[in-house]
Structures are given as structure tokens and as C-alpha cells.
């Protein structure tokens, strides 16, 4: 049973436009969410995170939005650049329970020049 779902396996966006990657979760005990970016033959790299007490966190071109009632979060990349082309993983954790990270299956983003 997938507790973290990324329903879009791939996404193509033109350079300079906004990329929106979506993630849904089913476990209401999750209280901390992270996005990781992965290039081929490399390990995932931490990108941005958000605590369940917030609904938005921004870091440069990257913004994560959290809608707790809908159990939904999204990652916005503005403006998208060709170097952003990678697989993006959403992950969730129950911070207070010392439980491990649970990852979604990932979304492959292609930014077309």
C-alpha cells in the first residue's frame, strides 16, 4: 500500500515556465515532508522540506506547498531551467515517531530549451 503517491511518472515543461510536481499521502501521522532530486547514476539530493505546521516554504526558485486537509503537497519550480531535468521524489516522515522516510515513486521532469 503506497503511503506516498506521485501519480505523474513524467512531466515536460518549456524552459522559463513553471513546473508543478504533485504528491499525495495517505498517512495522517506524517508531519514532515521533503523533496529530493535525482540525476542518473547519482544518489538523491535533498532539495526542500516543509513541516506540517506550515503551508508554504520557499527557497529561491523552489516553493513547496502543503495542503494538510487534502493530504497533498506540490513543488513549484519557477522559472524552470534545463538543469532542473531530473527525477523528483516526494518523501514523508513521522518526525515525532522516529520512523523512516517513505518515498513516492518519483516524477521525471524534462525541461525543454
Amino acid at each position: 500500500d503506497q503511503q506516498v503517491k506521485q501519480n505523474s511518472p513524467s512531466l515536460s515543461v518549456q524552459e522559463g515556465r513553471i513546473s508543478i510536481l504533485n504528491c499525495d499521502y495517505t498517512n495522517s501521522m506524517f508531519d514532515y515532508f521533503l523533496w529530493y532530486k535525482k540525476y542518473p547514476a547519482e544518489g538523491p539530493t535533498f532539495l526542500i522540506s516543509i513541516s506540517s505546521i506550515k503551508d508554504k516554504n520557499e527557497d529561491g526558485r523552489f516553493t513547496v506547498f502543503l495542503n494538510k486537509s487534502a493530504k497533498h503537497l506540490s513543488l513549484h519550480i519557477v522559472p524552470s531551467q534545463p538543469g532542473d531535468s531530473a527525477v523528483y521524489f516526494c518523501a514523508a516522515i513521522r518526525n515525532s515517531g522516529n520512523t523512516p522516510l517513505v518515498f513516492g515513486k518519483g516524477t521525471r521532469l524534462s525541461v525543454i530549451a
Partner: protein
Amino acid sequence: GAGVSQTPSNKVTEKGKYVELRCDPISGHTALYWYRQSLGQGPEFLIYFQGTGAADDSGLPNDRFFAVRPEGSVSTLKIQRTERGDSAVYLCASSLTGISGTQYFGPGTRLLVL
């Protein structure tokens, strides 16, 4: 500073053989994690060490899988009697504090069992 390193980067073995995968975490990181990533999937948790002890090994799929971290730094993931279904990328990560800390991943070991 050096990141998480994993050796070998690739390993090809035959069904039934024993393999060891090594992880060198970032210096000073007390927490170390092993994940397995199959094709088209996200990383799946295997085991988590806090210092030398396994704090959570609930993700190990069966007793053919075992991991150690004898001195609280380098860790070895051991797989006995490998099966074709064990083929995957095995990722190691470390974090400065406990499981709530940001995890930094190594490049992974790509294991292929023929």
C-alpha cells in the same frame, strides 16, 4: 568535504552467491540508512543505524539480508544466497542527528544478480 561514498559502484553476481556492499558516511554523522531502489520505484527503507546499533531493521525483506556498523562509521550490507529479485540499486544515506535530520545520499551500488 567528502560526501557519502559507496563501493562497489556496480556488482554483478550469480544467483546463490554472497555479496557485501560498503557505505562510508559523512564524517561525524551518527545516523546511517540503507535503502533499496528497484526500477521505476522510489527508494525503500531497509535499515537504520544510530551509532553502532540498528535502531530499526523493519525494512529488511528477509533473513538473507544483514547489515553491520561495528565502529559507528562504515557500514556493510550483506546479502546471502542472492536471488534475481535482489537486483536493484542499494542506496546508503547518513544524517548528522537522528532520523529526523536531513539525509544525504551516496551514489548507490547497482547490484545485478544473474
